[in-house]
């Protein structure tokens, strides 16, 4: 096994371990963890399967194998960012409703005193 392969596998495993730790500590919600676990598994697969990248590139008709890595990674990041924007928009609208309800309730509370 080549040195780079061992490093790649070790880093992937460390990353996976860190994600699992975050989930156990309750700092990462399950629905967001799925994306990260899948990413790490993909990394692991390609660490073991050295010719995998070449084979996949060939199948997809990409001449230079590293281009597949960049295209795939950038695409995944973009999709995930979009997902996060949706989450933030939803949170913002919920936050607004909560703040408004708090203001109305506080006023009602004061009136009764």
């Amino acid at each position: 096994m080549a040195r780079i392969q061992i490093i790649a596998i070790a880093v992937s495993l460390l990353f996976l371990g860190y994600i699992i730790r975050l989930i156990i500590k309750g700092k990462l919600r399950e629905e967001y963890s799925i994306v990260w676990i899948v990413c790490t598994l993909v990394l692991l697969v390609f660490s073991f399967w050295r010719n995998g990248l070449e084979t996949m590139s060939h199948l997809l008709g990409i001449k230079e194998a590293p281009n597949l890595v960049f295209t795939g990674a950038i695409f995944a990041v973009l999709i995930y960012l979009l997902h996060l924007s949706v989450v933030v928009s939803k949170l913002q609208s919920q936050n607004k409703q909560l703040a408004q309800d708090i203001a109305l309730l506080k006023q009602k509370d004061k009136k009764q005193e």
Partner: protein
Amino acid sequence: MPNLIPREFLAALRFCQKDSLILGMRRIAAVVPAYNEEKAIAYVVSEINSLQLPDGYSIVPVVVNDCSRDNTGAIIDKLNCVALQLPVNLGIGGAVQTGWKYAMENGFDYALQLDGDGQHPAGEIPKLLQKMNESGCDVIIGSRFLTNTGFQSSRMRRFGIIHFKHFNKALVGVTVHDSTSGFRMLNRKAIELVSEEYPDEYPEPEAIILYSLHGLKIGEVQVEMRERQGGVSSIGTFSAVYYMLKVSLAILYTFIRIKFKK
């Protein structure tokens, strides 16, 4: 004792309550959004409270403190008004909507928006009310540009206003001469809409699209505005271009969203 009271009477009673006939009063909520307005807010509230309205109408100032960093919150607690204190800063749209929700929950017949910086003289409210009653419109906008009297705003702002006038007309066929004016009166039907759905940032031009796409009738009446008594506009000169772009986009989105929902 529901059995002792005839059903018809109950129905009539409910109908009366709905129109506030039982109190003999039509109630108006004057929603004043305030962000760092400690200098002007007391004057604005006292102006509303001392307003002479036609018989059968009463007005209540509803001040929404949008988490001001100055003393506004403490000041409005002591004033003769309904004080709504937002725990976080929501921006003008979210603050005004809090007032709409208050009007909705407490059964007000009308709600109007009046800026916290003293730009909108409370003395002009009867004009809005009169127009509301005469025209049968659901929303009345106090406009500076029907006959061009009083404070006229900066050149950049006026350019933006003309842009929105044509933009709104192209989309929904309604001409509003002063689409950035926040001085507006809504009837119950409109309050029901805006307490559910109201734009966040720079809400005025966008709200016009919202009203007309939901089948509300919009009217305009000439009012005179003053220069602000204190505080800073929510729109700086630098961000005027950003404002126009952002609001144009927002108007377009609202238009598409509501059109597709139908």
